[in-house]
């Protein structure tokens, strides 16, 4: 009984929970910033920069607007972090199996990843500042744009694998690696949708720095902002882990530490692709994003589901 609780606490707080996720999140933020800088002929930050930023923000004063709802304002960053930490428990990190897995945890993970977006919206809305209000409206509008393609496109491999659990999907692809190229369209669509979820250029409309200052985060400062930014970093790791488990076969059947190394490698490759996307393009407007997502991404994800159905029927 005690060892069960200890094991649960360990996996929730240390690995692959809070401590691992936050340090891997900071590491991936460093990789992203360093690659982004090197693509622009700059030097980029040293390896401890995200950690230094976190420590600096923790030491700053927290200023809460007078008209804002104080309790809601303060608790939202913790909600975002908690949702992301819970979702990593269902994705295989150490070897081919995750800490908890059950049928339908694919939908649970995508749902849990929506919670941070809703907390951004509530955080901006409760700030009662005009910039934050516009930013939070944009967060929600953007959610309606990318969420549907993201959800539909992860259904494709699930149909092919015949199971609703992430561990099951990656195990299926580990044993049938020849079926991986079937989901190429899905991989591309999911990477673009992930860029939208993480609110990075070209989809960083909710945080459009030159337009609405800070978007939903305008009034956040100090340790609340530190936790919100940490939650965004952790979301990047979880998103990369989800894509590598569903589309790239996860740990490919390798046990223990080797599987973990493969997971790290795949996550870094996905972050490299995301950084390149960030460096390549300009920010588009919100209505252009909605039309892009509904006119191009959603039909492509439907096409992917169709292809998976056909391939499932033939094998």
């Amino acid at each position, binding site marked *: 009984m005690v060892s069960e609780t200890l094991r649960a606490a360990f996996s929730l707080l240390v690995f692959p929970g809070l401590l691992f996720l936050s340090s891997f999140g900071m590491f991936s933020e460093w990789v992203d910033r360093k690659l982004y800088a090197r693509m622009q002929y700059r030097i980029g930050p040293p390896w401890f920069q995200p950690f230094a930023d976190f420590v600096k923000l923790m030491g700053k004063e927290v200023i809460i607007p007078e008209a804002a709802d104080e309790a809601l304002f303060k608790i939202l960053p913790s909600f975002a972090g908690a949702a992301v930490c819970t979702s990593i428990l269902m994705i295989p990190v150490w070897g081919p199996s995750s800490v908890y897995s059950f049928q339908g945890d694919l939908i649970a993970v995508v749902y849990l990843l929506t919670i941070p977006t809703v907390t951004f919206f509530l955080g901006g809305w409760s700030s009662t500042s005009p910039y934050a209000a516009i930013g939070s409206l944009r967060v929600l509008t953007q959610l309606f744009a990318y969420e549907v393609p993201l959800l539909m496109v992860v259904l494709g491999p699930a149909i092919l694998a015949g199971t609703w659990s992430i561990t099951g999907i990656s195990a299926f692809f580990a044993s049938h690696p020849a079926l991986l190229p079937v989901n190429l369209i899905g991989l591309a669509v999911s990477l673009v949708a992930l860029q939208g979820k993480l609110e990075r250029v070209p989809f960083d*409309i909710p945080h459009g720095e030159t337009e609405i200052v800070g978007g939903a985060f305008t009034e956040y400062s100090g340790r609340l902002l530190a936790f919100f930014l940490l939650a965004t970093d952790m979301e990047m790791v979880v998103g990369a882990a989800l894509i590598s488990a569903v589309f790239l076969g996860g740990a490919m059947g390798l046990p223990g530490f080797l599987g973990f190394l493969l997971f790290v490698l795949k996550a870094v490759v996905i972050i490299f692709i995301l950084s390149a996307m960030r460096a390549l393009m300009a920010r588009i*407007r919100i209505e252009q994003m909605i039309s892009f997502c509904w006119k191009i991404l959603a039909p492509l994800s439907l096409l992917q589901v169709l292809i998976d159905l056909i391939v499932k029927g033939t094998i």
Partner: protein
Amino acid sequence: MSKITIPLGPQHPALKEPGNFMLVLEGEQIVGATVRLGYNHRGIEKACEDRSFIQNLYLIERVCGICSHSHTTCFCMATEDAAKIEVPKRAQAIRVLVGELERVHSHLLWLGVAGHEIGFDTLFMYAWKDREQVLDCLEMISGNRVHYALNTIGGVRRDITLEQKAEILKRMDILEERTQYYIQLATQEPTVLARARGVGHLPTEEAKKRGAVGPTARASNVPFDVRKDDPYLIYNELDFKVITSDSCDVFGRLVVRVFELLESFKLIRQVLNNLPEGPISVKVPRKLPAGEGVGHYEAPRGEDIHYVRTNGTEKPERVKVRAPTLANFSSIAYMLEGGYLADVPIVIAAIDPCFSCTDRALSISTSTEGGYSLSWEDLRKMGIEFYRSRGLDFSRIAK
């Protein structure tokens, strides 16, 4: 949907200098915009009256950081016009050379700033990396990267040596290749096209009515360029085209500026290869004879006008500066209305605002004694007479 008023206030990441735009928003659309200036007024015109002409050169230079050479040259031209001083040819050629290098500098800087405003930070970094080439040229010629301080009343202060000429020509070749790359990037990258096409529409009639100048007007198909219409220094001997575009939007302004870069490279090569011999300045007395003079110059942002009145002492009596951004400013309110909030930064950045140049004081006198007012007809006749005495006939231009 209810309307909220957002202040794109004096402090905002989109603005490089303080200016206030009160936007009335309905959702994401702008239904009303009020523009206000005045945050950068430093009293330069009054300060000029207290300093000698030599000291004023450096004060006028600091009206703006990027178009500093334009302001000094315009001031020198106005003073030389007032005191009837003839500037040697070599000095005029060197002024043109530095003026065109400054235009290259300013347009590359604008390209980076426009990229940053639409969220394209990579274009920002790349354009500013290439700007280093032209800054190195200017540092070599004049001793500083901005505020070149090359002009003096009656000529220039430093000469161009043969090594400097070779170095500049080499760098112009590098820059020309990069500019061709930017032309391709601007016309082929879909996100840039999505943000720039159809944004900030300013039709030709509105541009003429609101007095737009510079690339803003040329992008709305108003072919107005001081270098061709009222040639100064040695521009009447140089061969270049006036670039216009008829798309009347931000994309047109981007295209006009990038093609103007190519024309500037052509001009720089022409000047360097045909630099006239001679002295670089004439000796000018400290006390200038009384008179008034107007200097007219095509700054990177548009038409720059300086007026100087001398009264026989070594300090000017009155200096008036009309910077190009003031002429473009009333077009902003027109372009913002009906657009989206997301377009506000790029629309403002597309006229290349320099609010530091723009802030001047206007004194409104309530007494009507001792003054006189000119009707439009009289003003037009006065302008025609002024230019007729200089050999140009504008009487056939339609009202």
